[in-house]
């Protein structure tokens, strides 16, 4: 225990760790949450780019929630028609302030996705602003159809199709509607990007655990002590994992705290289909957010294990840093040039896959059985990462004995 605290203190005392944790917090909490909520994502638009937004996100969000609240509750054809009608009256008046209050991405996207035959290709405007509201009927049948069409296009047939449709049957209908944009930003962009951002800062913090030229020459000292290198290795591994958990914890508190402050909890029980219509998972927003954070948490643990292995193989801290970063960014960079199955396999590496897969219909086929991808994406990376730990220890031991 004593050793653990000393190793832990040693990691935190490094300037590089302190700076990287600070930058990580600034990036994720200050830019990714607070400024984003108050300014460039939810600040009311002035019609120019988002950096010209007003600094009034807190009030804007409340206005949006209130506006959507008029149509809130069970999402029926009538409710959608009502929303579209109101949207059109706002566009007719060309009222920018009123426009800011509408659920301006998701609702228009439903209209264009579900009612493609009502689209006028020559009209440059969004379909929602000219479509006749009373023609918008059969929301749920149409959703089912575009889901099935999508499966057909993506060549998901037979057993896989059955599996996904069966999952979809558990999705409760009709949906509940509240303002979606807040949840969309959190689940659709903040959480999926979180892992990628943390990669950089985790690598900087964890690369020195076993690496560094001076490390090799501590061997004779460590090897001749009573508790020996095994205790030291255990303390190093635990302190590395603890550091990863602590960084994650800081981000979790900062992220969730600012979310509660700016967005509140409203809409937590909406189904995730309100973010992506053809999602098949029977989950609500709260469940999806919990899934997202657990996903990142396990990814972080797995990634920590991987970085420590690389750290034990690398001669210098800098080399460990480069190896660690390339373990995540290289797969992300080359992934688009690879066949689809290879992309899916790479997603199983820690922090390479995305929690946004809950909105998708990807599956893995294991021994002929189909498994929805998020099940594997959440569990395999952490197992891989923890599987690296014994190798890291062995590798380090061998280096010290030289």
């Amino acid at each position, binding site marked *: 225990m*004593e*050793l653990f605290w*000393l190793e832990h*203190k*040693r990691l935190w*005392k*490094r300037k590089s760790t302190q700076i990287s944790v600070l930058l990580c917090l600034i990036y994720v909490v200050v830019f990714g949450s607070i400024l984003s909520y108050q300014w460039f994502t939810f600040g009311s638009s002035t019609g120019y780019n988002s950096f010209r937004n007003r600094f009034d996100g807190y009030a804007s969000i409340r206005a949006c929630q209130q506006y959507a609240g008029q149509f809130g509750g069970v999402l029926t054809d009538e409710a959608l028609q009502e929303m579209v009608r109101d949207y059109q009256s706002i566009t007719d008046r060309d009222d920018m302030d009123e426009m800011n209050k509408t659920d301006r991405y998701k609702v228009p996207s439903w209209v264009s996705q579900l009612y493609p035959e009502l689209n006028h290709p020559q009209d440059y405007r969004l379909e929602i602003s000219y479509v006749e509201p009373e023609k918008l009927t059969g929301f749920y049948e149409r959703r089912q159809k575009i889901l099935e069409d999508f499966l057909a296009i993506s060549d998901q047939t037979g057993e896989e199709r059955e599996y996904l449709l069966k999952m979809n049957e558990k999705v409760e209908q009709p949906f509940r509607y509240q303002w979606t944009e807040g949840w969309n930003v959190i689940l659709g962009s903040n959480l999926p990007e979180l892992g990628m951002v943390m990669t950089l800062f985790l690598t900087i913090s964890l690369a020195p655990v076993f690496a560094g030229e*001076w*490390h*090799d*020459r*501590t*061997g*004779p*000292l*460590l*090897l*001749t*002590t*009573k*508790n*020996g290198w095994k*205790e*030291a290795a255990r303390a190093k591994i635990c302190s590395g994992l603890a550091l990863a958990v602590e960084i994650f914890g800081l981000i979790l508190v900062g992220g969730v705290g600012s979310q509660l402050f700016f967005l509140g909890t409203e809409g937590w029980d909406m189904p995730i289909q309100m973010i992506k219509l053809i999602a098949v998972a029977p989950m609500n927003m709260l469940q999806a957010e919990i899934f997202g954070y657990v996903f990142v948490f396990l990814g972080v643990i797995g990634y920590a294990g991987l970085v420590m292995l690389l750290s034990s193989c690398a001669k210098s801290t800098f080399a460990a840093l480069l190896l660690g970063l390339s373990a995540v960014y290289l797969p992300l960079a080359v992934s688009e040039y690879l066949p689809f199955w290879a992309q899916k396999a790479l997603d199983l590496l820690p922090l390479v896959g995305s929690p946004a897969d809950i909105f998708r219909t990807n599956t893995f086929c294991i021994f002929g059985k189909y498994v929805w991808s998020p099940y594997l994406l959440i569990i395999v990376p952490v197992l891989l990462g923890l599987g690296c730990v014994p190798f890291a220890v062995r590798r380090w031991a061998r280096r010290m*004995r030289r």
Partner: protein
Amino acid sequence: MELSLDRLSKHYGSKIAVDQVSAVLGPGVYGLLGANGAGKTTLMRMLCGILEPTAGEVLFDGKSIAEMGAGYRNVLGYLPQDFGYYPGDSAEEFLMYLSALKGIPRHIAKGRVKELLEVVDLSACASKKLKTFSGGMKQRIGIAQALLNKPEVMILDEPTAGLDPRERVRFRNLISDYGENKIVILSTHIVSDIEAIADEVLLMKKGSFVQKGTVSELIDKARGKVWELTVPSSQAHSWQKKATVANLRHEGEDVVLRIISDHKPDEGAIRAEASLEDLYLYYFPAEKGV
């Protein structure tokens, strides 16, 4: 308490670094004296159990140290010749870390660290980072860490390297006190250190002990091999080429040479009082002036 070396050998490929070394060491201070490359470090690493012998074994009180494992390490203190440290640690943190590795409870370790920092005269730098330390300061920290667990067996590889004369004297006194009832083995190629500290000298050459004994016993062995010869200055150079010259002193126009040799080197040579250094030069003739 007894450390015995039983036909200990270490081969690196065809290179024989330590060759069938045997000895039985009771409490006392042992000076392992030898030129660079004689095999001192290799032997000491085997005595610490971090290097596996090619043949032979090391026994502590009759038990193989390899089998004792943590039990042996618990009574061992080791100062490696060239050791790594955690650059960001302060002296105190580094010693606390090693205490934890040595299984010393925190409350005891705290006092022990303070005491040892005092002993090696580094109390004032206790909270300074090791990377700001000079070579001598690092060496003293290394000595302190070897003492943390009050070892029964202490193995110090070139402990005086980098120490200035005052620190050397301090170190000698420390070790003489400590070695009263413990086994202390220290290596060096500096003869004067050994003369001052060691109860017994192990003279090592090409992987074997060529001489064992107390300082005076070894000096006895050199007796009769040391000569003084007075020659004109002009001849000094040629003598240095053809004989092992330990010292050279100008006296007016002439030069007095101290020559190590089995036989009387010249008609005019007279016998001189021997020292340990003379014996060293006798065995390592190429390494003049060490």
